[in-house]
C-alpha cells in the first residue's frame, strides 16, 4: 500500500533542531587545521556554512556532514558537528540510510563534481528522485582537484588538463539539469565569492523539507583558476549573473535594465524598458512543471546571464514521510507479535 496523502502544511518547512544557547560561527568550527590550498574557494564555502548554521542556530549534535572523496569532501573534518568522510561518490547512500533511520538528524552531503557526477552519478540521481530529506552541496570546480588536475564531467569540451593534454573529447554535464531531470524538489546555485548570497542559499536549502541540491561554483586556483571569473568577478557579475527570486521579475544588469522572456527556442534577453518589457517572466520556483526551470538551468555565459539562487522549490512528501507513514499504518493494521511471527502460518506439536 502506498500512502498518497500530501504532506500536511507543517511538514513543508523542515524542522531544524535548534541549540539551547546562542552559537556563533566559531562554535561550528572544529579545531582541525584546514588543509586546502591557500586561495581555494572551499575556504569561503566553509565560512559561509558555519555562518549559516549559526544564523539558524542549529544544534551541532544533530548535524551530520557526510562527504565522499575529493578536496571538497574534506569539509566535514572542519565542522564541529558529527561527520563522516566516506568513500568516493557514495555519500548520498550513507546519508540516505542515516537520515531514514534517524529522522531527528540534519544530514548535509558535501560532494565535488567528480564525486557526485562521475563515480557517484547513479546515487545522486536516486537520492534526488527519492526525495530523501538530505541537503546536497556540490562544489563544482570543473576539475579533479585532489588527484591533481584531471578533467571532470563538468569540464568544458576541448579543455586542456593533465589527462587531456590536447583537449577533452567529451561534452560536460550541467549539474542543475541533471538535478531537475532527477525530479529534485529543491535546486539552487550559488558561488564561493558572494558570501551573502551563498549564506542565504544554504539557509534556504536547510529549511527545505526534502532533498535539496545546491551547486556551488568553486574556484580551484591551482588546477582550474578563474573557471567562473568571466561572470562571477565583482566588476562583471551584475551584468552577467541573474539573481533569481521567487515571485520577482527575472531582471539583471547593473541598472536592472534587462530581463528574460520566452522565445521560440527557449529564453531570450529583452530590454526592460523596450517594447517587450511586458513579456519579462516572473520567477516561479514552485511551478510544478520544471519546464522554465530547465530553460533557466541551461542559460550559459556568454549567450545568456548565468542564473543564481533557487531555481526550483516544490513541496512533495519525502521518502521518509512515506516510509514512516507505512510503518505507522502497518503497526495500526497488523499485529506485531514476534512469538506469532516465529510460528509462521502453521505449526505442529511433537509429543
Amino acid at each position, binding site marked *: 500500500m502506498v500512502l498518497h496523502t500530501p504532506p500536511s502544511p507543517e511538514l513543508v518547512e523542515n524542522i531544524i533542531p535548534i541549540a539551547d544557547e546562542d552559537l556563533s560561527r566559531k562554535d561550528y568550527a572544529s579545531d582541525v587545521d584546514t588543509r586546502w590550498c591557500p586561495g581555494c574557494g572551499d575556504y569561503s564555502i566553509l565560512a559561509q556554512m558555519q555562518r549559516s548554521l549559526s544564523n539558524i542556530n542549529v544544534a551541532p549534535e544533530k548535524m551530520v556532514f557526510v562527504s565522499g572523496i575529493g578536496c571538497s569532501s574534506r569539509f566535514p573534518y572542519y565542522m564541529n558537528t558529527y561527520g563522516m*568522510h566516506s568513500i568516493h561518490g557514495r555519500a548520498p547512500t550513507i546519508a*540516505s540510510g542515516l537520515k531514514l533511520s534517524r529522522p531527528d538528524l540534519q544530514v548535509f552531503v558535501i560532494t565535488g563534481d567528480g564525486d557526485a557526477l562521475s563515480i557517484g552519478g547513479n546515487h545522486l540521481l536516486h537520492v534526488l528522485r527519492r526525495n530523501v530529506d538530505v541537503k546536497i552541496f556540490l562544489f563544482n570546480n570543473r576539475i579533479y582537484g585532489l588527484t591533481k588536475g584531471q578533467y571532470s564531467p563538468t569540464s568544458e569540451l576541448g579543455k586542456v588538463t593533465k589527462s587531456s593534454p590536447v583537449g577533452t573529447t567529451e561534452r560536460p554535464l550541467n549539474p542543475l539539469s541533471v538535478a531537475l531531470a532527477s525530479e529534485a524538489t529543491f535546486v539552487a546555485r550559488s558561488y564561493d565569492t558572494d558570501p551573502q548570497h551563498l549564506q542565504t542559499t544554504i539557509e534556504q536549502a536547510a529549511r527545505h523539507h526534502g532533498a535539496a541540491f545546491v551547486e556551488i561554483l568553486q574556484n580551484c586556483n591551482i588546477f582550474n583558476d578563474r573557471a567562473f571569473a568571466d561572470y562571477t568577478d565583482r566588476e562583471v557579475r551584475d551584468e552577467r549573473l541573474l539573481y533569481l527570486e521567487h515571485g520577482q521579475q527575472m531582471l539583471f544588469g547593473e541598472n536592472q535594465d534587462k530581463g528574460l522572456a520566452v522565445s521560440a527556442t527557449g529564453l531570450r534577453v529583452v530590454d526592460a524598458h523596450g517594447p517587450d518589457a511586458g513579456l519579462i517572466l516572473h520567477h516561479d520556483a514552485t511551478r510544478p512543471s520544471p519546464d522554465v526551470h530547465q530553460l533557466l538551468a541551461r542559460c550559459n555565459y556568454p549567450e545568456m546571464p548565468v542564473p543564481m539562487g533557487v531555481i526550483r522549490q516544490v513541496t512533495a512528501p519525502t521518502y521518509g514521510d512515506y516510509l514512516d507513514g507505512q510503518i505507522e499504518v502497518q503497526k495500526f493494521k497488523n499485529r506485531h507479535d514476534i512469538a506469532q511471527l516465529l510460528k509462521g502460518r502453521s505449526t505442529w506439536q511433537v509429543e
Partner: protein
Amino acid sequence: MTTTSPQANGSGNTATASGGAAIQERDRVTVRFAGDSGDGMQLAGNRFADATAVFGNDFSTLPDFPAEIRAPAGSLAGVSSFQISFSKHQIFTPGDEPDTLVAMNPAALKSHLAALTKGGLLVVNEDAFTSGNLKKANYPSNPLADGSLDDFRIIKAPITTAAIAAVEDLGLTTQNAERTKNFFALGLVYWLYDRDLEPTLDWIEQRFGRLPNIAEANRRALFAGHAYGETTEIADAHVRVPPAVLTPGEYRTITGNQALVLGLITASHLTDLELFYGSYPITPASDVLVELAALREFGVRTFQAEDEISAIGTAIGAAYGGGLGVTGTSGPGIALKSEALNLAVMTELPLLVLDVQRSGPSTGMPTKTEQTDLLQVMFGRNGESPLCVLAAKSPGDCFYMVLEAVRIAFQFVTPVVLLSDTYLANTAEPWPVPDINQLDKIDVPYRKLEHIDPEDFQPYARDPETLARMFVPPGTKGFEHRIGGLEKSDISGDVAYSPENHQRMTDLRGEKIRRIANFMPELEVDGPDSGDMLVLSWGSTYGAVFTAVNDAREAGHEIAHAHLQYLNPFPRNLGDIVSRYNKVLIPEANTGQLRMLIRANFLVDAQGYNEVTGQPLSARLLTEAIIKMASE
C-alpha cells in the same frame, strides 16, 4: 541429536508383501517431482512437505528451478524439480538419489531419470508423451514404449486427461482445468506414501477460498489422483514411513531465507533497535528483502537501493546512526560492496552483511548452490582488512547465526559477514519454534557510553578486553566528532599518516577480530578425540557430511567430525584439533577454500573432497570418499 544412521537411500525395494494392497514399511524415502516450470512442481512439493510435517516424519527438501522465469514449455531448459526426503529417523540431507520420480513430461524424464535409483518407482504423465514433447526433449523414440525404462517400476497415469475429467462440469477454461494436474499427481503420490489429504485441503481453502471454482477443481483433482492410486493395481508401491521420534515441542517448516528474516526481526527485538535492511534484488537473496518489506509493522525499514553499493552505503548510514544496519546479497553483490565494506572496517561500525552464496564466477548459475565466497569475504578487499565471518549450517541455524552475528557486531563494533547459500536458502526442514522469551537480550554498548562524561570520550579509545572502539552515534551532545576512511590515529581517531600509527592500527584491527574467539564457543568434535581421521566441514554441507560420516562409521570406520560455524576468527582450539589426527579431510562445494586457510594457518596436510556442480554435496559419494581415505 539422534546419530543413528538413516537407512541409505534406495536401500532396495524388496517387496515384503505382494498383491498391491499390502503396505510396506520403510525407514526413509526420497521423492522427486519434476515437470515443466508451468506445471506447479514447487507447489506440489511444498504441499507434500507440509503433509509430511503433519504426519510426523523428519524431512528435508531440495527445490531446483531454472534461472529463466518462462523457458519454452516442454523444453529441457524449462524443467523444474522439487525433491523431498522423509524418514522415521532424524535426517540431515534431502537425499541423494530419489526412490520415486514423478515426471510430468518427457523433458522432466530426460533431465532426471539418471538420478533415479535402479528399480525405483517412476510415475509418468503419459498424456504428455506426445510426439511434439518427445521432440522437444530430444527423444528419438517414445521411452514409454521402447523398453528403455525396463529397469524401473512404472506407473503410467493419464494425469492430464484424468484431471480434466475430474473437473469437467465446473465450467473451467481448458487451461485452468489442465492446471489441476499437479494436484492429481499429488493425490496419487499421497496414496503411494500414505499421506493425509487434510493439510492440503485446508491449504486449498485458505489459498483459493475466494475463488470457489478453482478451489473445488483442485480438491477434485487431488481426490481423483488419490482414488486412482487406490483403484489401480500398483504392485509393491504402497509404502509407509513411520513418524520420526523428534524432540517434543512445537515445530514449523522453515527455509534458510525465512530463518534469516526471522533472525533479523528477532535481533531487532533483542537489541531494541529498529532494523534497516538495504538491498538490491539478486537471486537467491531477494526473498529476504521481499519478506522483510512485508513486515513494516515490526518497524522494519527496507530500502531497495539503486545498486549493491548503495545498499551497503545505506546500511552503513543506519549503523552509523546507531541502528541495526544490515545489507544482504549474493556473490556478485559482495564484489560490488567490497569498497564500502572496507569503509565499515576502517570506521569500525557494527554492520551485518548477509551473503547468500550462489554458483559463479560472474553471473554463473544464479539458482544453483556453491560455497565459493569464503575467500572473497575473507580477503576480497584492499589493504589489511580483517572482519568477522560466520556461516550457517542448516536452514534453522540461519536464525541463530543472525543473532550471533549481531551480538558480535555490537560487542566488537565491527562488520560481520554471515554466509548462507542457495541450498540453505531454499531447502526446508522442520524447525522447533524458539521461545522469544528464552532468548538472551543483545547488549548495545553505546547506550552506556552516551552517559559518560564527554571529556572521557575518545572515538578510537578501546575496551581493554574486546578492543571494541568507543562508538557513539550522532545526536549526543558533547560527543561531536568525525570519522572516515582515512587512517585513524589510535585513541583520538584523528586523521594520521605516521608509520608507527599505521602499524599499530593495523595490528589493533587484526587483534580485535582475533579476540572475538575469546567470546565464542570452542569447536566440538563428534567422535574420537584424536586418532586416524577427522572430517572438517563448514556451512551448508553439514547435513551431507554428518550423514556421510555416520554411514562410514556404520561401515566400520572410526572417524571424527567437526563443523565450523565461525570462519574468522577460527575457534581457539581448532589448531589443536586438526593436529590430533593422522588424516584431515575437508569436503567443500568449492575447490578447497577452507582447506587453503587450514593449511596456511596450521601447517597440516589437509586433503580436500571438492565438488563444484551447483548441487549440494552427495552424501553417498562423500561416504565413499571418506571410506577410501580411512582405508588408505
